[in-house]
């Protein structure tokens, strides 16, 4: 029994290991350890990754087994380690021998430089190197298996004694300071106030770079709140959200820049026009998709987003949109004759935008419109049966979301003084969707958290830049499997106190939690 589990896990672990090596993660680990912990060379990081992968393989193998048994655990760990080690060793053998025969593998596999492979062979000939990495993986897998077996036994003993497993939230609440703050509304407000003050004075101390980045996070917060209205509150999966962002940005650009149209309107005039046009675009987009099913809605909106991008890039409309090169010298806001278009002032601008967006979203959430949206999201037919005119509310959702996107787009274009078709690729829509989903659909703090995690974190972890989108995609998949309601889920209005087993369900919109039959 342990053997089969071990072999299966070993195969999976081998694929993962070889994959990570092929995309160069081992070198990344080496670089990270060098720059963060001042490790002198890069091979410690590389081998740390190898060991961790072995530990994981052994641990997973044991985790798959229901019955506790040291013999089986070690058998599983050993077999997983042997399979993983053998396959990874074979792969290394291949790579090393080909490289040592003089072929530069980088024409095929861009990460497989001499240095990259040498980090794994440690200067040994191919065969000993394969043996070494195999051995390391085997030992790590055994260790991982032993550790996991121990932890599972501890856990089983706890359950046998009748102790309940404690969630992270509960454990945090046990800390007296946290409990006091979270229960006392006054202290919550004070904390919020302190936070606001910090935000207000921050730009004076942060340099240009961080002001810009925080500003970008803020823009994505506004975008996230807007998409939150469409997806989270109304339940309409919009994958072409970037189109409204583009409308706002291009409106601002084309109205204030000297180039394509020589209009050179003031920023303050162009901004509301941009928002208005975006809202109109939202309604126009909403009309054809009113009756479409969820999946089709997603694809059609995606198509719309791409259409806007292709049109703005096309040669044929260059006279109108500025073509593939975009629009330069976008106007800045001017206050009392002074050009305040730098990162510093824009930070406050964006902050005001964020606060407005939060206020609008909260008001909508607790209004008739918000309740209509929630009803539509849970079950459209029932909502219609209850007398909600879904047409109107769907269009309203699109318009509101689009307006927020238009606002962000206009600010974005003005701050960069430039905008072009490359700013509006599909990835932007997916970024915003991801931060809404990862943060928590329909939840305002969730969206803000999502924006910080998905936009702010990569800025801090600059070395991971190449792998950002990869992690992103994996994160989406993992989040859906592990925690579909997001990091900070919206709380559902409760009519009665929830029973303990319903507690987890209470946190998420039905969209993400229910669905046993007929799905």
């Amino acid at each position, binding site marked *: 029994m342990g053997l089969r589990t071990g072999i299966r896990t070993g195969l999976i672990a081998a694929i993962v290991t070889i994959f990570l090596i092929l995309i160069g993660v081992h070198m990344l680990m080496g670089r990270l350890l060098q720059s963060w912990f001042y490790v002198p060379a890069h091979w410690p990081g590389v081998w740390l990754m190898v060991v961790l992968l072995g530990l994981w393989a052994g641990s997973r193998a044991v985790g798959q087994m229901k019955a506790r048994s040291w013999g089986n655990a070690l058998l599983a760990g050993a077999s997983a380690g042997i399979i993983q080690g053998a396959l990874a060793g074979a792969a290394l053998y291949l790579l090393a021998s080909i490289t040592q025969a003089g072929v530069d593998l980088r024409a095929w596999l861009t990460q497989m430089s001499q240095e990259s492979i040498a980090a794994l062979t440690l200067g040994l000939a191919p065969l000993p190197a394969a043996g070494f990495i195999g051995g390391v993986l085997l030992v790590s897998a055994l260790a991982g298996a032993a550790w996991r077996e121990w932890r599972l036994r501890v856990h089983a003993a706890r359950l046998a004694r009748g102790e309940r497993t404690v969630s992270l939230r509960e454990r945090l609440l046990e800390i007296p300071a946290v409990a006091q703050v979270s229960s006392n509304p006054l202290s919550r407000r004070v904390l919020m106030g302190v936070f606001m003050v910090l935000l207000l004075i921050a730009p004076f101390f942060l340099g240009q770079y961080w002001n810009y980045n925080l500003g970008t996070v803020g823009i994505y917060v506004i975008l996230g709140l807007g998409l939150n209205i469409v997806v989270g509150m109304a339940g309409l999966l919009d994958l072409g959200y970037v189109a409204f962002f583009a409308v706002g940005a291009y409106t601002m650009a084309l109205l204030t820049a000297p180039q394509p149209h020589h209009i050179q309107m003031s920023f303050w005039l162009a901004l509301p026009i941009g928002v208005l046009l975006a809202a109109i675009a939202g309604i126009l987009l909403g009309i054809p998709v009113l009756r479409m099913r969820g*999946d089709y809605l997603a694809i*059609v909106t995606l198509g719309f987003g791409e259409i806007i991008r292709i049109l703005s890039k096309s040669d044929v409309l260059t006279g109108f949109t500025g073509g593939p090169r975009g629009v330069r010298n976008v106007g800045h806001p001017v206050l009392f004759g002074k050009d305040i278009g730098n990162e510093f002032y824009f930070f406050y601008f964006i902050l005001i935008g964020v606060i407005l967006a939060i206020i609008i979203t909260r008001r909508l959430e607790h209004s008739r419109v918000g309740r209509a949206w929630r009803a539509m999201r849970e079950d459209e037919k029932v909502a219609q049966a209850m007398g909600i005119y879904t*047409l109107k509310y769907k269009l309203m959702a699109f318009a509101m979301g689009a307006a927020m996107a238009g606002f962000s787009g206009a600010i974005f274009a003005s701050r960069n003084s430039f905008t072009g078709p490359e700013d509006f690729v599909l990835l932007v829509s*997916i970024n915003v969707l991801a931060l809404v989903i990862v943060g928590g659909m329909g939840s305002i703090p969730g969206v803000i958290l999502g924006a910080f995690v998905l936009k702010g974190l990569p800025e801090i972890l600059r070395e991971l830049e190449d792998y950002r989108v990869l992690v992103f995609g994996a994160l989406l998949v993992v989040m859906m499997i592990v925690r579909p309601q997001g990091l900070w889920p919206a709380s559902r209005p409760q009519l009665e106190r929830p029973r303990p087993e319903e507690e987890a369900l209470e946190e998420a919109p039905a969209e993400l939690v229910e669905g046993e039959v007929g799905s």
Partner: protein
Amino acid sequence: MNVAAESSKLRTARVKERKVSLGLLLRLGIGLLVLAFFAYRFYGVLARQAYGAETWARLAISGLIIGSVYAVIALGYTLVYGILFMINFAHGEVMMIGAFAGYFVLEAFAASGFSARQPVLAILITFLAGMTVSMLVGISLERIAYRPLRGAPRLVPLISAIGASIFLQNAAQLMFGSMRRTYSNPPALERNVGWVLDIAGKPVSITYTGVLTFAFSVVLMIGLYLLVQRTRLGRAMRAVAENKEAAALMGVDVDRVIANTFAISGVLAGAAGVMWGLHNGIIYHYVGFIPGLKAFTAAVLGGIGNIPGAMLGGIVLGIAESLAPAVLDMPFQLKDVLAFAVLVLVLIFRPTGILGEVLAEEKV
């Protein structure tokens, strides 16, 4: 209150409402506008005699070829949708990986001279490599990203699919780089070489790669049709598509059937990827995105869940996309825009597709 009078009032009111609705008026209006636009532009083109007969022929032929590739990819989408009611967003990426697998094999063959000595065998093995790798990717995709989400509401697997798609694109970019790679066709099957027809006095070429693409696509379509209609696995697939619970009760291993469906759709995508590489030459990590989207459009166009529909939709979309810029007197750069426009129009006017959907369960 006179009950009889009240109820007769309700009856007439109901009948009146069914006749003309706002939605119907809107659709009629939009439809008329679109038709008018088409007619106006087409008339302009005809009047100017902007394109000679040989251009139309050339466009039609290239549309047919690309349409057959779309059809093969669309079959993959429709198979998965029919069983799981989800759009396999990562299908385009599965095709891309197949194209890359074929690329590496073909490169090795070209370097060793095998392509020159045994072109037929080389091409065959290339296809096999592409199809196998794509099949494995398709199966892993299902296992990792979709199976754990089997019972979840529709939004969840959709987002997981988007995540998987992004992941695969970027994994390919990290592993193989972002540069465009060119397929090294065997000398016997070079691109842009073929027979030359004479139409209205001007030459129109039909390339060897084009013929291969079209022929192989037809073979795959026929093969799939036979598989679904005549084999046990096909019967099991149809059963699971019709009603998962009932099929399970009748002894069908639903998990296996779903895995097999993904395997088959992977094989088809891989074949399409290799065909794309052989015919169009250039592949890169993003190559699966737009064809994937268009193939989905084709599947919807033909009727989602409907296998002949996917084939028809693919061919129709290919030809339409090829001819539309010429018919409507628009620049060819906007080809993709027109393909998306087709999607939107189909979903507004005939959401069930040309041949109708084949989904037994009422979609919630």
